C-alpha cells in the first residue's frame, strides 16, 4: 500500500468532508512552508511544547468528537470521551514513539475508550437497570435521510460497521483500519465491501416500509 494512489474518486464532496484532508500537511498545492506532521508535533509536545499540542488538538478536536458522536446513540458522553482520549494522549506523551501514524495511534486509543464506555454502559443497563441511552432527539424526531442512514448503519454487523465508519468518516486507509481493529488488510477490504453493499441494499429498500419500521423501532428504544 506504500505506493497506493491518493483517494480520488468516491465523490468530490467527500474530500472536503475529511478532517485529514483539511490538514495543511496533506494539501499538495500549499505554497507556505511545509508544516510539521502529526508525529513531529507529538514529539515536540513530548519535549514540552504547548504550541505543538494546541496544533494537534485543533487538527483532531472535531474528527475525534465526530468519532464518538457517530458511534453512540446517546450524544451526551461524546464530549467526555473526547476529553478522555486527549487525556490519554497527554498522559502517554512522555512514552510516545513514532512507530506508527499518529492518527492510527489516536484512533486506536479512542476505539479502546469507546469500547470501555460501551461495556460499562451495557453493564449498567443490564445489572443496575439504568434506562437505555436516549437517541439524539433531533434525529429521533425527524424521519429524514440522516436518521434513516443511522438506522441502516446500526443494522450492520458490528465489525463491518466499524470498518465502514473508520473508512467513511475518519478516512483511514485499509492498512490503518487493519491496525486499529487488529484485522488483516484483506479482511478489512472484504468487510468494507460487504458493509457498503449491505448499506446500499438497506437504503435502497422501499422508503415507506423503511420509515415505518425505523420509527416503530425508535419508539421501542424510547
Amino acid at each position, binding site marked *: 500500500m506504500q505506493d497506493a494512489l491518493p483517494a480520488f474518486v468516491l465523490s468530490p464532496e467527500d474530500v472536503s468532508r475529511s478532517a485529514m484532508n483539511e490538514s495543511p500537511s496533506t494539501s499538495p498545492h500549499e505554497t507556505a512552508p511545509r508544516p510539521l506532521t502529526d508525529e513531529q508535533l507529538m514529539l515536540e509536545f513530548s519535549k514540552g511544547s504547548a504550541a505543538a499540542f494546541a496544533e494537534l488538538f485543533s487538527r483532531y478536536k472535531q474528527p475525534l468528537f465526530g468519532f464518538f458522536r457517530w458511534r453512540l446513540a446517546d450524544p451526551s458522553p461524546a464530549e467526555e470521551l473526547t476529553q478522555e482520549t486527549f487525556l*490519554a494522549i497527554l498522559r502517554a506523551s512522555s512514552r510516545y514513539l513514532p512507530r506508527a501514524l499518529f492518527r492510527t495511534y489516536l484512533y486506536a486509543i479512542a476505539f479502546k475508550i469507546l469500547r470501555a464506555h460501551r461495556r460499562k454502559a451495557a453493564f449498567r443497563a443490564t445489572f443496575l437497570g439504568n434506562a437505555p441511552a436516549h437517541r439524539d432527539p433531533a434525529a429521533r424526531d425527524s424521519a429524514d435521510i*440522516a436518521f434513516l442512514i443511522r438506522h441502516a448503519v446500526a443494522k450492520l454487523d458490528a465489525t463491518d460497521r466499524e470498518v465502514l465508519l473508520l473508512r467513511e468518516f475518519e478516512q483511514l486507509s485499509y492498512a490503518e483500519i487493519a491496525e486499529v481493529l487488529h484485522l488483516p488488510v484483506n479482511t478489512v477490504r472484504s468487510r468494507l465491501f460487504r458493509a457498503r453493499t449491505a448499506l*446500499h441494499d438497506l437504503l435502497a429498500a422501499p422508503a415507506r416500509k423503511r420509515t415505518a419500521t425505523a420509527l416503530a423501532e425508535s419508539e421501542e428504544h424510547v
Partner: protein
Amino acid sequence: MSTTTHPFGPEEVMALLDGELSQANAQAVSSHLEQCAECHAIADKLRGTSHSLTQWSVPAAPKTLEESVKRLAEKKLSGEKIGKPNIFVRATFWTWKQWTVGIGAMITVLLLFIVTRAPNRMMYSGSPQVAAKAPLAEQAVGTGSGNGRAVRELDVQPTDRVSSVFSSHAEPHTTTGSDSAADSNGLMQSSTEFAVSGSQTSPSDSPVDGREIGSLLPLQQPMIARTVSLSIVTKDFAASRASLDAMLARRHGYAAELSANTAENAPRSLQAALRIPAAELSSAVADLKSLGRIKNESQSGEDVTQQHADLLARLKNSRETEQRLQAILTQRTGKIKDVLEVEREIARVRGEIEAMEAEQKNLEHRVEFASVNLQLTEEYKASLNAPAASISTRIHNAMVAGFKGLAETILGILLFFLEAGPTLLVAALIFLAPAWVLWRRYRRAAASVSA
C-alpha cells in the same frame, strides 16, 4: 460478476475508488471500468452509498471541550499528575479475553504459591532442629488454652519458658539415641524413662494436680513421630538390597514389612516399611540415598506430645480408680451382689488400663522408631535374550488394547453422563438460564448504546 468475464473483482473496483491500488493496478482497473458497464454500475453504487453517508453529519465540538483539554495540557506541562493512576486506566481498556487471561493467571500464580509452599512445610518438619521447635511453639499455645495456671506462667515469662524448653527438648533425643545405640532394646529403656517421669510428677510428690502434669510434661519432652518416604532408582539391585540389610543391622533398625517383585522382562522392585531408631534416622536416610538416584522424597513429623501426656494422665487416673476399687473390695463388706459388681468394675478398669498401656507403648515406639517407607526400583535394562513377541502378535495386541481402550473411554463417558447428567442438567438450568437471560440483556443493552 465473475473473474472469467471481468479481469477484476468488485472489491478491486472499490479499492480503486478508495485509492488503495498501486499505480499500475489502478490504471488497469480504471481502463476496465471505462469499458465495462457492469463494473461501472458497481462503482456508481459504491459512490452512491458513500455519498449518502455524507448526509449524516454531527454538530461541532463544544467550546467547553477545548477549555478542559487545554487546562489538562497545562497541568501536564507544569509536571502535575493528571487523571487516574495508570493501572486503573489500563484495566478499563481490558477486553473480556484479557480479563479472563488475567484472572486465570492470578489463580495459577496463587496455586503455584500454595503448591510450592507445601513442600517447604514438609522440609521444615523434616529438619531435626527446626521441626522440634515448631510443634513446641504450637504446644505452648495449646497448653495455655487448656490450663489457666500454665497460661499465666507463659504470660509472665514466655521467653524463659521457651528458651528452657528449647534447651531441654534436644536432650532426650540425644540421650535416648545414644542409649539406643548402646543397647538395642531402646524401647524398653525409653518406656522406663517415661514411667519414671510419670512417677516423679505424681500427686503425692508434687503439689500440682494431674491435669497440670499432663499439660506441662510435653513442654519438657517433645515427642515427634517421624515419617520418611523415599523412592530410589538403583542400577545394581542386588547390591542395593545387600546394602539395605547391612544398613538396617548397623543402625539397629528392622523391616516391619518388605515385599520384593522380580518379574521377568521388567525392572525388579522392592517396597519396604522400615523402622529406624529416631536418633539414627538422618544417618540411615543418608545411607539409603546413597543406594541410587532419588526419584521422590518426602519427610514429615507428627507431634504426639499432647496425645502422650493426655494418655499418661488418663492412665494414672485409671490406676488410682483401680486402687480405690481394690481397697473397697478388701476393706468393706457387703452383699455378694455388691462384691461382684465391684469385681466387674475392677475388670473393666483393668481392661482400660491395659489398652492404654498398649497405646502408650505404641506411641512411644512410633517416637522412638521413625518410619521409613522405601521404594527401591531397578533401572531396567532390556535384555536381548528376552523372547520378543512377533510383529503380527504385537499389532494384534495393540489393536485389541486400542479397541478396549476406546470401549472403556466411551463407556466411561457414558457412565459419567448417566451418573452426573441429571445433576449437570439441573445445575445448567439453575445457572445457565439466568446467565443466558443476562447475556441477552447485555447484548441488547450494548446494541442500544451503539449508534
